[in-house]
């Protein structure tokens, strides 16, 4: 196995210790981050970022909405930066909490979102591993999710830290607004920390099944990653890791939307589908229908679930990865390991280089120039004020 894929596997193997060590440390850092009066002023929470950071928002928005009872949505940094502060500016913008997520804190678009939305009075909170970054300076409040001995930049442990921080933030807001008792809040925090155990137990079966999938599928150049609710976040993360590791066209999609769109893709036998689900998931019945649909299409399929495998002879092409049972909101954390291992095994089998080595036509991504050096544009109102 090459060093390239070992890096992804190392990230997966390091997750349990990170979850154990960091969950309560993150809780300590964010517990008093937002003053109680501001928490009571909230009407809306926007989770925004780009890449893995946006995926962290996708993965946690449902949980935060359920726990806090507030309108919570995850939104690309471009939408938050350019499509929220256009007139009419809302007089009560302080009731909007904009959670700006960026591990490096240097993504131009999320910095722009923080600056522009703070300017209209929204409460801006940076979730970043760099407390001295431009994002940390742009936002009103900062939660530092830096991990010991973890370099800045995208990696699975940093993504896990962002997931955990967002869940803890939602629990804290729900607790302070008394949507959740203190005992319930503490139990949920402990549940997140205990998630280290199922993640650890899942590593060996993940490695075995993902190696099988790579053996079968590494000749293909596209894949669908499917899930709903929190599992749509899992699908997004798995797709991102596949694109980064192998360069194939990997498309994340909601399970319902698949039946409307990617169902019709040509050459179904050459387009593997990875399905993230759980027996108790709210979308489980539709996922069961999806399994039949994929079979009828002749799609190579990997089903990642907590249920035992269907051993029926009609499903010979389906790979099955059974993971430990856990609460649905935590599935994006449990699914990090299979996502990393599938990408790592596929990359190894296909002989790919991660991120195309940032060379040749991809050299524009060196030192993250494409995302860091983009022009940060002030709002039309800010431009007018400067001109005046």
């Amino acid at each position, binding site marked *: 196995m090459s060093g390239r894929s070992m890096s992804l596997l190392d990230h997966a193997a390091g997750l349990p210790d990170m979850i154990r060590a960091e969950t309560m440390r993150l809780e300590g850092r964010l517990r008093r981050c937002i003053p*109680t009066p501001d928490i009571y002023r909230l009407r809306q929470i926007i989770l925004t970022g780009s890449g893995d950071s946006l995926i962290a928002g996708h993965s946690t928005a449902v949980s935060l909405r359920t726990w806090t009872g507030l309108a919570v949505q995850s939104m690309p940094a471009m939408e938050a930066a350019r499509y929220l502060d256009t007139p009419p500016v809302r007089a009560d913008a302080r009731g909007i909490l904009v959670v700006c997520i960026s591990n490096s804190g240097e993504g131009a678009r999320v910095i722009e979102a923080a600056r522009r939305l703070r300017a209209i009075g929204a409460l801006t909170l940076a979730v970043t591993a760099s407390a001295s970054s431009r994002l940390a300076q742009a936002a009103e409040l900062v939660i530092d999710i830096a991990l010991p001995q973890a370099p800045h930049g995208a990696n699975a442990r940093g993504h896990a830290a962002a997931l955990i921080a967002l869940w803890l933030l939602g629990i804290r807001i729900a607790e302070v607004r008394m949507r959740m008792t203190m005992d319930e809040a503490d139990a949920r925090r402990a549940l997140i920390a205990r998630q280290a155990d199922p993640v650890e137990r899942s590593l060996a079966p993940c490695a075995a099944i993902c190696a099988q999938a790579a053996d079968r599928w590494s000749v293909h150049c596209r894949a669908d990653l499917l899930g709903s609710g929190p599992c749509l976040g899992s699908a997004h993360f798995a797709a991102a890791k596949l694109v980064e590791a192998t360069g194939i066209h990997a498309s994340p999609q909601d399970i319902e939307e698949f039946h409307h769109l990617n169902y019709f893709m040509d050459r179904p036998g050459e387009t593997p589908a990875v399905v993230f689900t759980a027996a108790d998931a709210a979308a489980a019945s539709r996922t069961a229908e999806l399994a039949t649909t994929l079979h009828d299409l002749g799609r190579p399929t990997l089903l990642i679930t907590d249920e035992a495998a269907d051993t029926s002879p009609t499903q010979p092409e389906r790979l099955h990865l059974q993971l430990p049972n856990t609460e649905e909101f935590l599935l994006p954390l449990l699914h990090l390991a299979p996502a990393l291992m599938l990408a790592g095994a596929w990359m190894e089998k296909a002989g790919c280089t991660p991120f195309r080595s940032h060379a040749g036509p991809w050299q524009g991504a060196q030192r993250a120039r494409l995302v860091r050096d983009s022009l940060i544009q002030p709002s039309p109102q800010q431009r007018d004020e400067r001109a005046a």
Partner: protein
Amino acid sequence: MQSFGLATPGNGLHDVTEQVTEAIAKVAVKEGIVVVSVPHSTAAVTLVSPWDKLGLEDVHDEICRLVPARIDFKHQHDTPQDAAGHVKAAIIGHSRSIILAGSKLMLGHSQRIYFWEFDGPRSRTVHVQVVGT
């Protein structure tokens, strides 16, 4: 010292007279003082009449009127309810002493011992110490 647990379903007064009586029966003291104490900063112990349930609600409503949960307490480590609970418990007190005579608690006809929850629902503990002969 005897102790018993209590899972409070919410805020308000929870009758613990029977549990205290059972705790006293386990010690060989007939004459003395019984101290009922709660090791919590957002709960208290008091004596109230049990006969009208609405009267119990009046008692609880009144302490909430005096110390409402507000969002501008300086103590923001926990919740506004918790912050208010600290104040309420400090006012009411975390323990009560009751005379024990002839192995019986000297409670009046209209007196019961109540655990007073200010930050429930929670898992709580009540301590009972009997001092005497």
